């Protein structure tokens, strides 16, 4: 297990990505699976900064990588505002360009990229997101 705390700032995203890549390689994930985890974690951390904290520099993101026999588990913890994952609407695809929105897709993409996605919310502990990617 390896854990690191990053400031909740967009400039942390590259450092978080490097941290994930290092542990994905230790786990033996291939290049595609490694990119999928990096992308999912980037989307999750961007959402934490933008939506949970409501901006940059307002809290930290704790990132833990657990090397499993069959893959990698990433745990992200923040103390920002909680949300209901069921309230997140899937993005519409195949609609005309002019009707397409200008943002979103983070949770939708995380669910598509990862094998397991699990949220836990606690008033004391904040939000915990557990992501698993199999080899």
């Amino acid at each position, binding site marked *: 297990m390896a854990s690191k705390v990053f400031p909740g700032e967009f400039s942390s*995203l*590259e450092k978080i990505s490097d941290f994930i890549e290092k542990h994905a390689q230790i786990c033996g994930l291939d290049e595609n699976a490694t990119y999928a985890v990096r992308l999912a974690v980037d989307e999750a951390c961007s959402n934490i900064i933008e939506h949970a904290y409501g901006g940059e520099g307002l809290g930290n993101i704790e990132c833990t990588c657990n090397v499993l026999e069959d893959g990698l588990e990433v745990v992200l913890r923040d103390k920002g505002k909680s949300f209901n994952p069921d309230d997140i609407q899937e993005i519409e*695809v195949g609609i005309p*360009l002019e009707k397409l929105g200008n943002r979103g897709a983070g949770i939708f*993409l995380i669910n*598509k990229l990862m094998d397991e996605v699990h949220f836990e919310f606690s008033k004391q502990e904040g939000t915990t997101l557990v992501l698993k990617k199999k080899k």
Partner: protein
Amino acid sequence: MAIETTEYKRCSLVKMDGRIDSNTGDSLMDAFNAVQENGIFKLVFDMTDVDFMSSKGWWVLIQTQKACKRYNRGEIVLANVPKKILDSLDLVGMNHYFKIFDDVVSAVGYF
């Protein structure tokens, strides 16, 4: 991260390297906006040296495509999209909104 813009007779070529994420996406948007402010709406985005693109990048491209296609004045096309980025675009159906070329010469030649 570096962003370069080159003007050709019929279009402009924008090239960026490194990551496109929530930290760098606004700089790319600024580069596309600067080209459009010069009245150029036919754009090629060379992604040869982009090694990571989050959904922030897709939305920058979508916003730019909307602006370029308005009044049928042009469009943005993509060149040399790395496979892992293309796969993620495919996953959410974003690739349908762009013409994608295997090389910059073909993309510039399209205009």
